[in-house]
């Protein structure tokens, strides 16, 4: 995807042409200039040109009508009512001010106006009152525009219930900026902020103090800074959990797996989504390993420390793989424990390769006998390397064999 260059970032003010007269004393000079490219939207991780955007927002001063023709003054936004969207606040202010200070009668729509007044008219179509996509609001909303430039996938977020409404009502300067700076401080990379918010937009509604308390809790548990950065990047929902909940989950893993504190921390750093995912499948998987497969406690600990993903794997899948490897291929428990990657592999792959080796009479998984084939090489090598080194045949032969299965 080619990166897009923004030439300018402007804030538009909508000036309603209902009922107030605008006069200017200076003459206008019309220029046609094209601005230099200053910004780029970070692409979805493929290109290397990801850099911070610099938004140059030019504020148009709101025109307040006065009969003496004084110099215009910028409007103040602090007294705007809070329930309005940020860019609608300006609308209301102008309307209120103009109605209060209007002394001359309103202008007729068909009356002639000067060039300067015509230039001031900005007749954009009105925003739809309700919409099921954010693309109608993204041109006018500063918040949404900044989020897109960060790399947040609005098309995914608008499908989630209530997230679209929440994002529109946020103010970039007040709410979002401080959270982003906090995340940067914690160690989340700049090009990861967009994907982070795409996965967890609700972090923008959390209190900054709460987030800081949770990070300091992790630090108190002796996680290193790099570990914390990795955990937060890989498990975006973790900072939405309160301290008690994070503590409970860490305690659960330490108790269930029976590992030491350091090993549990290493495990959680390697696979942070263990902390944010559901615990029921993990409990079930542990029971399956112990009762159905018949692994010992120390074997389960070894498997998990080598391949943590088996804790969250699909029960049917690992049962199918174990059944085939242990019963059909005849591999004993201690060999599976030595090569737990095989439990993470695709069953179809293992089946095809085993049947091919069986056809070639090379299916030998006992290390004490000659021509031994290790399980991890069987499961993880690519087709070319497998055919060349283990099966000692060509890829073409393997394909012909696959079509006879």
């Amino acid at each position, binding site marked *: *995807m*080619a990166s*897009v*260059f*923004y*030439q*300018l970032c*402007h804030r538009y003010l909508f000036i309603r042409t209902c009922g107030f007269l605008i006069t*200017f004393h*200076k*003459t*206008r*000079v*019309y*220029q*046609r*200039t*094209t*601005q230099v490219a200053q910004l780029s*939207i970070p692409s*979805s991780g493929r290109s290397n040109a990801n850099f911070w955007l610099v938004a140059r927002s*030019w504020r*148009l001063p709101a025109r307040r009508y006065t009969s003496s023709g004084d*110099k*215009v003054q910028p409007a103040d936004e602090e007294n705007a009512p809070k329930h309005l969207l940020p860019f609608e606040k300006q609308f209301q202010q102008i309307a209120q001010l103009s109605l209060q200070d209007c002394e001359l009668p309103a202008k007729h729509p068909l009356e002639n106006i000067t060039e*300067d007044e015509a*230039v*001031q008219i*900005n007749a954009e179509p009105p925003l739809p009152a309700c919409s099921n996509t*954010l*693309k*109608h609001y*993204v*041109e006018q909303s500063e918040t949404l*525009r900044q989020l*897109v430039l960060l*790399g*947040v*996938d*609005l*098309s*995914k977020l608008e499908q989630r219930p209530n997230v679209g409404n929440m994002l529109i009502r946020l103010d970039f300067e007040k709410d979002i900026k401080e959270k982003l700076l906090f995340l940067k401080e914690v160690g989340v990379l700049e090009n990861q902020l967009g994907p982070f918010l795409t996965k967890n937009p609700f972090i923008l509604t959390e209190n900054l103090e709460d987030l800081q308390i949770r990070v300091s809790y992790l630090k108190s548990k002796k996680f290193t800074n790099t570990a914390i950065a990795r955990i937060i990047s890989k498990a975006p929902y973790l900072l939405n959990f309160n301290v008690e909940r994070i503590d409970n989950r860490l305690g659960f893993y330490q108790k269930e797996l029976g590992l030491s504190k350091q090993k549990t921390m290493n495990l959680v750093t390697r696979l942070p989504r263990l902390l944010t995912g559901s615990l029921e499948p993990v409990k079930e998987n542990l029971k399956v390993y112990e009762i159905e497969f018949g692994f010992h406690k120390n074997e389960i600990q070894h498997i998990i420390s080598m391949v943590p993903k088996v804790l969250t794997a699909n029960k049917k899948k690992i049962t199918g793989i174990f059944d085939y490897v242990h019963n059909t291929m005849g591999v004993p428990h201690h060999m599976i424990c030595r090569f737990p990657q095989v439990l993470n592999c695709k*069953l*179809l792959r293992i*089946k*095809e390769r085993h049947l091919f080796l069986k056809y070639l009479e090379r299916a030998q998984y006992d290390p004490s006998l000659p021509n031994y084939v290790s399980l991890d090489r069987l499961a993880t090598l690519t*087709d070319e390397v497998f055919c060349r080194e283990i099966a000692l045949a060509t890829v073409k032969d393997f*394909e012909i064999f*696959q*079509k*006879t*299965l």
Partner: protein
Amino acid sequence: MRRAYRELQGLFAVYKPPGVHWKRVRDTIETRLIQDLRSLDRPPQPEQVRFLLGSGEGQDPSELTLTATNVPVLAEHPLVKGPPFPHLKVGVGAHLDLPSSGVLILGVGSGNQLLQRLKSQHLSKEYIVQGVFGKATDDFSDTGRLVEKTTFDHVTLCSLEKIIAMIDGTHRKALLTYAGIDLHSQEAYEQAVAGLLRPSHKTTPLITGIRCVHFDPPHFTLEVQSLNETQQYLRKVVHEIGLELRSSAVCGQVRRTRDGPFTQHDALLHSHWDLDKVRAAVAEAGPRVWAALRCARDVQPGERRESVRATNTESAEHT
């Protein structure tokens, strides 16, 4: 990207592995194709011209100027609009059930209409069915619940071929009935010789050809050419062969080697399910599919595929 999408439209065949549901095959192919299409070059983002009001550089701040700027339309950005190709129409021809494997025809985009037309041509399919004497199970396959065990020493190749010939004969008679023409006419004879004798509508499963290719008791292999069949029907046929031979048989493997104009040779293995290979397969299969749709002639039992291909191209040249 648009060119790649255009070249994808059509029919191609994949080799469905055993133990994988046909729907999962279809979904995997759809996901892979969408992924590969999205990774290709995209057209540039549309831009719009906006006239912006503000103070120009080097000018008096209270003076307003209009500047025309080319600004990309943010609503058309992929992060706002969504990525291209949210879905792809991939249709499946004749289904294959979970334990079977073999040629499965898929259609992409406008190729799905060709699927329907191909179906109405009632072209036959070829299967390799492996059976084992000595067991009978509840679902006629070797993984089912065992119902009975029998001896099979008395089964010989001769007796097996007799039974097979009997089955062949009954089904041929049924085919003649479904063809809907008078059996005693010259026209019927000529059509039967030319291989144009096919049912014009959906019928019960019909076996147009069956022969034993391998006999090694208790294992045996049959090559079956049929119309409107299901794989479970073929397993039932194996079971019935066992019963006729006063023994019992279960079906081991059911593998489709040909589906209409698509053979095993053209089918793509699961390691080749990507955009380039599918495009090539669609382009290669195109002429054959059109020839099959135009030509009313089906493959006769025992006839090799290459000769039919030759006659199809000849008839295509004549028309």
